[in-house]
Each structure stands twice: as C-alpha cells, then as structure tokens.
C-alpha cells in the first residue's frame, strides 16, 4: 500500500521528509520505499548528473551533439532490448544496455567527425545527417527484426511510475561517477573549456576531455531514459545549467544553482503529480511535468534577472 495514496501538496512534503529520515536512521528499509520516493530520488540523482555535465556541454557548445547522442542512444537501447530479449520495458540487463549505448555514442561522435573533417561537410549538417540516418536505420532494423512497425513509446517518453529500486541503485552509481569526474578534474575542465590552446601548451589534452564528456553524457542518458525518456532528459541537461547561468556569473555557483534547482524540481514534480492525481483525479506524465517545471524555473530566472539588472543588452545587428 503506497503511503502517498491520497496525499496532497501539503501532506506530501512532511510525509516524505519523515520517511527519508527513517531511511537514513535505518528504521525504513530500501526495499520498502514507495514508488513516489523512488521517483524523487531517481529524478534528483539525474538532476545532479545533468546539472554537472550539462554545464560543461553548453560551455563547450556541444548541446546539439548531446541531442544527437540522445537520439542514437535510443536506437542502441532498442536494439539491445531486442538482442537480449523482448521489448517490454521490464528488467533489463544493464551491462548490455550500457555497452550498446556507449558504442552508439562513440559511433555517433566518430561518424560526425569523419563526415565533417574528411568529407568536408559543415558541422551542423554533419551532426544532423548522422543522427537522423542512424535513427532511421534503427527504426528500419527494429521493424524488420520484430516484424512490428511500432516501437514502444515508453522509450521515447519514459515511464516514471515503473521505476524500481534497481534503477535507484544505477542512478546512484552514475550520479556518483559524474560527481567524481567533474569535481576531481574541476580545474582541468575549466581550463580545457575556456582556453584549449593554452591547455595544450601546459600539456593537457582537450580532446581527451571531450571524449570523456561524451561518455559521461551517454551514461547519464541511460539512467535517465527509463525515468523521463531520452528527449526530456535534454531539458534537465540544458535547462538546469541555463537557468543557473542566468542567476550567477561564477562557474562554481552556476553548478550549485543548477543542481539545487534540479533537486527542487525533482521533489516538487512528484509532489505535484501526486497532488493532481489525488485532488483532480488527473494522472499526468511525471516526465512532462518535470520538463515544464524546469521551463517555469527558467522563466522565473529570466524575470529575476530582468528585475535585478537594468541592462538587457541587445546584440548589434
């Protein structure tokens, strides 16, 4: 019996914090976590990862490459599903999915580089060409292999309600990995993103960091796809850092704001979703709700900045 059944916004938060306290003090077992709680925790962990690597991605202007990755990872996941057995969104062999997705990420990046540098096509067109072709190829393969022309929408949209304690463990590992890589190499990230020429002269390799970032992105995307689907993961990845950027000029504070807003959005989304279900009998997509909330936060940040600073500089021309 889900303890959140019938909860509203006002009753959700106290109950949640009370149970979290129990969890930390050991009175509540991990396996007894309610689905709402798992959702909050998984979303929170995704947010932290997304905030960290999303910031690096937009500083390196690789946001659309991340978009491309998220599409091809989709195909990799589906094919991995088929190879391992049965499209159903049920328990997945994480090892297979992880490898398939990392391979897709590498394939996408590599092909894009080849088409851009060897075949000399401009970069935006190279990105667009590669990921749409791979995506189309994936759909065709899936149709031929499953004799079925419809791919599960779940992979695109995610299904937060089906989240399981296993997903929580995976999310924990990935968020931990993101934290580790970003914080340990913090000054190296700053250096290679800001001034790659100078970085090289000191002996660092900016391209190695780019590949590392791609790998971290695909790993985080996999954790996210079950909860929010690969496309809405991008709202976390790009929306959280952009909101943080509006609120501060310092890189460190930007990361903190982005993560903080992400945590808030995670908690509030699930609470709101439960509230709407209880009070209005409206079951809505939790992923969509989270995405919209991030949009709202962004809008608020824009207004806040507009109010605080008097100059909204327009680019000339």
């Amino acid at each position: 019996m889900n303890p959140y059944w019938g909860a509203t916004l006002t009753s959700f938060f106290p109950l949640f914090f009370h149970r979290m306290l129990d969890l930390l003090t050991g009175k509540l077992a991990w396996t007894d976590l309610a689905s709402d709680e798992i959702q909050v925790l998984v979303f929170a962990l995704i947010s932290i990862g997304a905030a960290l690597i999303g910031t690096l991605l937009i500083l390196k202007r690789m946001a659309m490459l991340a978009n491309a990755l998220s599409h091809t990872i989709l195909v990799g996941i589906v094919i991995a599903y088929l190879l391992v057995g049965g499209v159903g969104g049920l328990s997945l062999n994480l090892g297979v999915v992880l490898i398939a997705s990392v391979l897709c990420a590498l394939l996408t990046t590599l092909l894009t580089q080849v088409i851009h540098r060897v075949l000399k096509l401009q970069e935006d067109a190279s990105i667009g060409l590669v990921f749409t072709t791979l995506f189309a190829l994936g759909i065709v393969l899936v149709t031929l292999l499953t004799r079925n022309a419809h791919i599960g929408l779940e992979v695109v949209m995610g299904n937060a309600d089906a989240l399981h304690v296993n997903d929580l463990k995976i999310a924990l590992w990935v968020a931990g990995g993101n934290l580790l890589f970003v914080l340990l190499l913090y000054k190296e990230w700053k250096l290679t993103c800001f001034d790659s020429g100078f970085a090289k002269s000191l002996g660092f390799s900016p391209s190695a960091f780019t590949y590392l970032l791609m790998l971290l992105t695909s790993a985080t995307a996999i954790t996210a796809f079950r909860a929010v689907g690969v496309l809405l993961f991008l709202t976390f990845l790009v929306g959280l850092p952009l909101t943080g950027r509006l609120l501060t000029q310092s890189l460190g504070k930007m990361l903190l704001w982005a993560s903080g807003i992400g945590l808030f959005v995670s908690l509030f989304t699930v609470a709101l979703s439960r509230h709407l279900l209880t009070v209005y009998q409206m079951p809505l997509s939790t992923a969509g709700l989270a995405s919209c909330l991030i949009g709202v936060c962004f809008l608020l940040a824009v207004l806040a900045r507009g109010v605080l600073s008097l100059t909204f500089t327009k680019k000339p021309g």
Partner: protein
Amino acid sequence: MGEVNSPAIEIKNLTVHYGKTPVLWEINCSIPRGILLGILGPNGAGKSTLLKTLLGQLKPIGGETLFFGEKLREKKKKIAYVPQRSSVDWDFPINVENVVLMGRYQKLGMLKWPKKADRQAVHAVLDRVGMLPFARRQISQLSGGQQQRVFIARALLQEADIYLMDEPFAGVDIATEKALIALFAELKKEGKTLCIVHHDLMTVRSYFDWILLLNSCLIDFGPVEEVFHEENLKRAYGSSAYLFTETKKLAQARSTGDE
C-alpha cells in the same frame, strides 16, 4: 645538460607540413637569450604555426628545436605561451583571478587544489600588470586591453624564462600597448627571452631588438637595424611574396586534390 651559454631557442632545419604542403620550410635560426624578438610576415606565413610547433602542439616533418640546449620535454615548464585573444570564449563564467590562476595548473598537476600562496602570487602578478582592482571582475566585462593584460599576467605566473606571444597588441588600446612594452622591457632586463608575433610594421623599430622575417621560409633573421630594411620587406610582403603565396596555395590544392 645544455651549455651555460646555449641560446634560448635553437631551430634547426625545421619543416612543418599541413597535409603535404610545407607551411614552414627549413627554418634555421639561433635566438639568443634576453632579447625581444619580433616575428613578422604576411598572412599565412606560418607565424602562429611556428609558435605552435615550438610548443610541441604541431609535429614537424623534419628538423628539431632546442631550448637552452635541451629538448622541449625537459624545459616545458620554462616556456610560457600567450595565445591569440580571439581564440578564447570571453563569455565564459569566470573572473580575472581564476583565469590568471590557470597559470599555476601546470605546476600543481592534476587533482590538486590551489593554495593560499598561489592566490597571493596571483595578486602580485595582477598588480604588476595593473589589474589588481579587477581581480573579482567577470572577464566578459573587460575591454580588449584589459583582457590582454590578464593573459600576460597568467603567463607571468608561470615564472618562465621564454615567453611566446601571438599578436599581443591586436585590438588593444594605446595605453595598454605602452604599459605592456614597458613590462616586456623589464622582463628583458631580468634576462627573459620574449618572442612575439607582431603585425604592425610601424612600431617594429621601436619595440624589438631582433626580428625574424617569415614567409613560410626564413627571409631574414637578426638585429633589427641590420634586417629591417626595404629590400627584406619587399621580399616578405611585396609582389614576389605574393607570388610565393600563390604557388603555395597551388601546391596545397594539388596535395589535397582540390581543383
């Protein structure tokens, strides 16, 4: 071990290719210590390429370079690089202090955090370039001249013996240019060697001791009174140089299969 009196930089038969086309052809020169060297040449002459090759970022087809008589690997920490200002994203969320601090990263290595002593060093260096009041300022709010000073400060923090700078005076106000030249003179007095890619022929005589005239091949090299004259400039910038650039382009087209 290099000799005590070995030149700052020794370049022997250096040839660098872009694909199959030579960008630098058989460069030979011996740059003595404690001078201000101006590197001049028309567009595409290979000036930035020379700097990057010296730093080991580009691999030459042939030839070698020695720093104080030793290979780059041994002396890397003694060489500071100031890249072109345009190569950087000035909207990056970072302040002046932290940019300069990057000059310490090589010494710190990976995984170590900067300490208080490092920050004090940063302040000292910022003071030297006249940017101490701006330490906490966002770099997007700086003018061209101020940005350049920050870059120079970062190089100073590296406490190097050789400074390689790519067009430090491009897009910079007069006051900054004068301040920087004064600073470079001080560094020269301290025995440092400064090699600067420069674009303004008007100021060459007053700024530099020696010059290196480049147009893919070495046109001339030596003290400014001996080398900076009309005939050499004609060779470097004149119609014969233009012909040179054209043939270079043709050679490049042949090697990449373009029409």
